Every structure is written in C-alpha cells, then in structure tokens.
C-alpha cells in the first residue's frame, strides 16, 4: 500500500503540471469572458431596439400598430414626409435594423375587410441569430394585432358569438402519459425537456473520457519516451499496481479538470440564458416531476455508476493504446478511435431513437460500452431496469477483460519490444 501511494503521488504530480493549470485557468477565463460578452449582446437584443417606421397612411389603425410596437419595448423612429425609397435610404444610414412601411390606404382596406399589407425591410448588418430577433418580435406583434383585428371583425359581423371559438372550433387539450403517470403537456415539449435534461451527460462523459484517456496515454508514452519505464518495471511493485496507479491518477485529474471545465461552461451558459431560461425551466420542471421524469437519489447513483464504469473502460483502453504506441505523439493519434467510440453513440442519440433502430445497428450501438450512460435516463424513466443493469454488467465485464489484457501486456515482453523493434533492427543493419 505504501508503495502504491508513493507511485500514485508521483503519477498525479506528473499530470498536474504548469501546462495543465495554465490551460485550465485560461479556459475558465475564456468561458467567463465569452459568457459576459454574450450576456451583453443578449441584453442588447432583448432591450430597447430601434425600429424606423414610415407611416404613409396616417390612419387610426396604422397609429395603433405603432403604438402596439412601442408598448412591446421598441423605440420607434418615425420618418415623416418621405417616399418609400427615401425612407429606405435614410434608415440605411441609421442604426435601426428594421424599417416598417405602412402603405397609404392601409386603414381603409382594413375597414373594408380586405387583406391589408405592411412591408418590413430588415437591414442585415450582421448574421448573428440574436441580431435577427428584432424582426421575429415584429412578426409577433403583427400576429397579435391580427388576432385583435380579426376578433373585432368577427364581433362586428357576427355579434353574440365568441370569436375565439369561431376561429378555432376544435380545441385540443394535450396529456402525456409515462408509464402510470399523466400530466398536461405535449409530447414534443416533454421529449424536448428530457433531451435537454440529459444533454449534459454526453458532454460530461466526453470531457472526462477525452481528458483522462489523454492523460493515461501520455503517462505511459512519456515513460517510454523518457526511458523511465524499464526502471519502473524492475522495481518491486506489482504490474497491476502500476496500471492501477496510472489509471487512478488519470481518472482523478481528468475528473477534476472536467469538473472545472463544466463549471466554466455552466457559467458561460448562465451568462447567455439569463433569467428567462430559468423561469421556463422551473415551469417545465413541475410537469416533469408530475410525470416522474426526474432523477431521485437512486437514479443519480445509477447514472454515476454508469459514468464511472464508462470512464474506467476508457482508461483501460487508453492504457492499452498507450502501451502499443511508441512515443507521445503516436499515442496522441491513437486516441482518435477512442474519441469516435464516444462520439458515435452521442450523435446517434441526437438523431435517432436507439430503441427503434434496426437490430444490427442496435447491437452495434449496445456493443460500444460508452453508449450505456447515454441510455440510462431513458431506461430509468421507462422502467427498463433490465437494460440498465445489463449495461452496467456489460461495462464491468469489458473493463475487467481490458484490465486483464493490459496487465498481460505489462508483464509480457511486448511492453518493451513493441517500441524497440524498429530501432534495434536499424542498429543491426548499420
């Protein structure tokens, strides 16, 4: 045990170097900075926006539209006494992103129940999505006005009838049923919330897997490159201890740095989303609770166990790759297949339902150990405990096999001869 701790301490010290600390600190700063910037942009977009308006009609109705926009927190810059073309030019020079043109005769045709038109000109001064929100809001205001206007038409023409039921004679009240629970919500809303709930799992998993495997790989490859491996292997300590110490160190440091990254990421997202998102989330949360679509303690434990096993599998795989690699650089490129193995289930889970894909694809996905943590929340909600524990058992088996295999390599000639073959042949020829 004393020897193991000695080794573990050294492995951790090797991994936590200035480089790592600087890169972590830098990322945190970067996330923070980008988050702050985005928050400012969002506030600008949500805040008072300037719209230019040319009212060629001047009727009560056109005034009502502009007043409606003003009450929706827009600042209206009225362009007076100009033609449409002139107005377009004037607005181009200004700051507003949108020019609203209400043609003459607008109010009259409204009165005659004829379709009436207004024109909007958006100045695309940038292509960011947040920037384009202005025109979406204008459209919202127009549709609200449409509602009000059509209500008043209907009231005028068909007095005594409720305009709302005239416009939508059929109403739907949506319920979602999950197993034995029911709540009032639409299926697409719930699916959206579940997927956003488990959005973090793949991100966390990817981060940790990538970080820790990189560390394990470099831990082995560096020993080879710096020619310290041979000495280490003749020290009186068991080969499995060497492997475990390296994996544990990489796992711990990987976990820590992923945690720090996640923290940065969260503060970044918080920066963008702001209060609006939080409010929406708490509303959805009530529905999800009603449906039982949330994690209780045992749920978190299962998810944690699944993530932990996935990380162990990744570390064991990385260990083997690290042994096979000649030096640090080739070890780095060995990491690619491992990354793909994590990405494949992630992308499939984004676009397809693993439960309904064809059998060969399903087998393929389930054979990748990293798929299982992605499936935990689904299976937990749907009560597929067989799948969950099957997945856990499968990962455990894969991990054991990999560790045994890694230990084999470590106690065989391969760990030394694999890198030596090329070099030695050359000396013989020379």
């Amino acid at each position, binding site marked *: 045990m004393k020897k193991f701790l000695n080794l573990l301490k050294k492995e951790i010290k090797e991994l936590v170097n200035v480089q790592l600390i600087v890169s972590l600190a830098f990322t945190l700063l970067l996330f923070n900075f980008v988050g702050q910037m985005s928050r400012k942009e969002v506030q600008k977009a949500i805040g008072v926006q300037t719209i230019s308006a040319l009212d060629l009609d001047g009727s009560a109705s056109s005034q009502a539209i502009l007043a409606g926009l003003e009450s929706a927190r827009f600042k209206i810059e009225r362009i007076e006494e100009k033609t449409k073309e002139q107005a377009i030019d004037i607005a181009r020079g200004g700051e507003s992103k949108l020019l609203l043109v209400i043609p003459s005769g607008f109010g009259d045709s409204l009165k005659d129940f004829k379709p009436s038109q207004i024109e909007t000109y958006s100045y695309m001064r940038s292509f960011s999505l947040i920037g384009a929100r202005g025109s979406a809001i204008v459209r919202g205001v127009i549709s609200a006005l449409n509602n009000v206007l059509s209500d008043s038409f209907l009231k005028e023409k068909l007095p005594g009838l409720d305009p709302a039921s005239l416009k939508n004679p059929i109403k739907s009240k949506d319920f979602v049923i999950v197993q034995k629970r029911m709540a009032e919500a639409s299926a697409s809303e719930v699916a959206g919330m579940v997927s956003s709930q488990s959005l973090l799992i793949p991100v966390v998993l990817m981060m940790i897997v990538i970080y820790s495997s990189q560390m394990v790989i470099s831990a082995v490859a560096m020993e080879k490159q710096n020619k310290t491996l041979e*000495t280490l292997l003749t020290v*009186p300590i068991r080969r499995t201890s060497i492997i475990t110490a390296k994996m544990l160190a990489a796992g711990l440091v990987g976990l820590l740095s992923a945690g720090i990254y996640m923290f940065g990421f969260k503060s970044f997202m918080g920066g963008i989303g702001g209060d609006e998102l939080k409010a929406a989330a708490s509303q959805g949360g009530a529905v999800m609770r009603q449906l039982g679509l949330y994690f209780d303690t045992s749920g978190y434990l299962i998810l944690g166990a699944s993530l932990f096993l996935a990380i162990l599998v990744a570390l064991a795989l990385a260990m083997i790759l690290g042994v096979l690699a000649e030096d640090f650089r080739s070890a780095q490129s060995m990491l690619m297949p491992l990354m793909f193995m994590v990405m494949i289930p992630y992308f499939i889970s984004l676009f397809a339902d693993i439960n309904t894909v064809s059998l060969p694809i399903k087998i393929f996905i389930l054979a990748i150990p990293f798929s299982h943590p992605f499936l935990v929340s689904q299976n937990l909600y749907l009560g597929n405990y067989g799948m969950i524990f099957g997945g856990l058992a499968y990962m455990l088996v894969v991990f054991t096999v990999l560790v045994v295999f890694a230990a084999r390599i470590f106690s065989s*000639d391969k760990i030394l001869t694999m890198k030596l073959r090329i070099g030695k042949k050359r000396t013989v020829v020379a």
Partner: protein
Amino acid sequence: MDNVLTVKGLKKTYGKQMALAGIDFEVRPGEVFALIGPNGAGKTTTLRIIATLLTPGDGTISFLNHDFRKEPDLVREKISYLPEEAGAYKNMKGLDYLHFMANFYARTPEEEKAFVDRAVEITELGDRLKTKVGTYSKGMTRKILLARALMTKPVLAILDEPTSGLDVLNALEVREIVRRYVKEGTSVLLSSHNMLEIEFLSDRVALIDKGRILDSGTPAELKERHQAKNMEEVFRSSLR
C-alpha cells in the same frame, strides 16, 4: 559460498529471430562479472531477462537458489537494474527522484533516508540534487541513475553499459564508483563492448557473440590462455 546467480542453457528468440542460443555463466558473491561482446551479441537481452523484464526462453536461471521464473517479485526486491538507455523523471528534483525510488525498497523511513544519503554520497552532485533532473547533463543523469541502482545495496546490481555515452572523465568516475561501492555484499553483472574498461572493472569476464558464450574467466586467465596482450586481442583470438 553459493553463487548469487546461475544461468544454464539460456535461450531467447524474438519472434523468429534468435537472440540467445544457449548461454551459461554464474555470478559469485561480491564479484563484478562482465559480459563483453559486439553490438547485437545478446548482452542487453541477457541482462533484461535477469532483470525480470523479458521472459526467459529455454534454460534455467536460479537466483540465490530460488526458481527465477516462479518468484519474480522476490527477485525484484533484491536486484537493481540500470538500463542501457535510461532516464529519470524530468520534472522531479534529483533528491525527490531518489526518495521516490528508495521508497519502493525501504521498509522504514529511516532506511529510506539511509538509502538516499548513500546515493547523495555516490553522485557527489551536492546542491544540484535540489534542481530538476530535466536540467542535468548526460553524465549527471547517468550518475544519479547509477547511484539509485547501488543505494539499496542490492544482492545483484545489473548494469547495462554503465559508461555508454559518457566522455572519458565521466566514464572514469562511473567506473570508480562501481569499484568503490561494490563490496559490502553486492555483486555486479555488467555489460560492455569496451574491452579496456572491462579489464579495469571486472573480476571475471564472459565473451559473448551471436548469442553464445565464446570463453570466460578472469582477465588474466583469458590473456594467458589466448597469449594476448590485452582483452581486445583475447576477443579476436576467441572469435577464430
């Protein structure tokens, strides 16, 4: 007294390539035994097998009368190995490296300290041991590695070309270290292709080429037997 190490008919192949074609030698207590031979003779292969890094092929190896194959952990407790090309952890300070390595062999903190003190004395690096290994010259690195191999007073120190890559003065120092600190119950098995070095260092020598032992004995015996003035001539004559 019994031999520290007895090797009989040891063979080793890498895939199809034959590296050792059956070699025999023994290392006696307190002696420096050298394998000398040209590049590719099989020296490193032999030493790596004795250092438990490679699995032996046919043949028997007994270490302190224990079966070598069955008890690699016991062997590792009592040997130390200095690889032909070796490095130390670059980010560690010299002293930390010595402590790190001593910890694996020491049973008590006092023993660990004794090991490190001995290594510090061997290296003669003084305050430089407080700087990182990454800043050391080749000669300094070799010395700290040699010191770490000798500090635990192993029963058998296995040194693969201890002076390789060193200049004349550093090589001389390393040789003196080996001579001076090898007593007190430590035997040495070393390899070299420097015939002159061997004469200075070793009590007994085995000439090895193409995975076979050509001849062995004390340098004096060998010179006499081959009627040669030095070990280089001995080697040439034994090749015939």
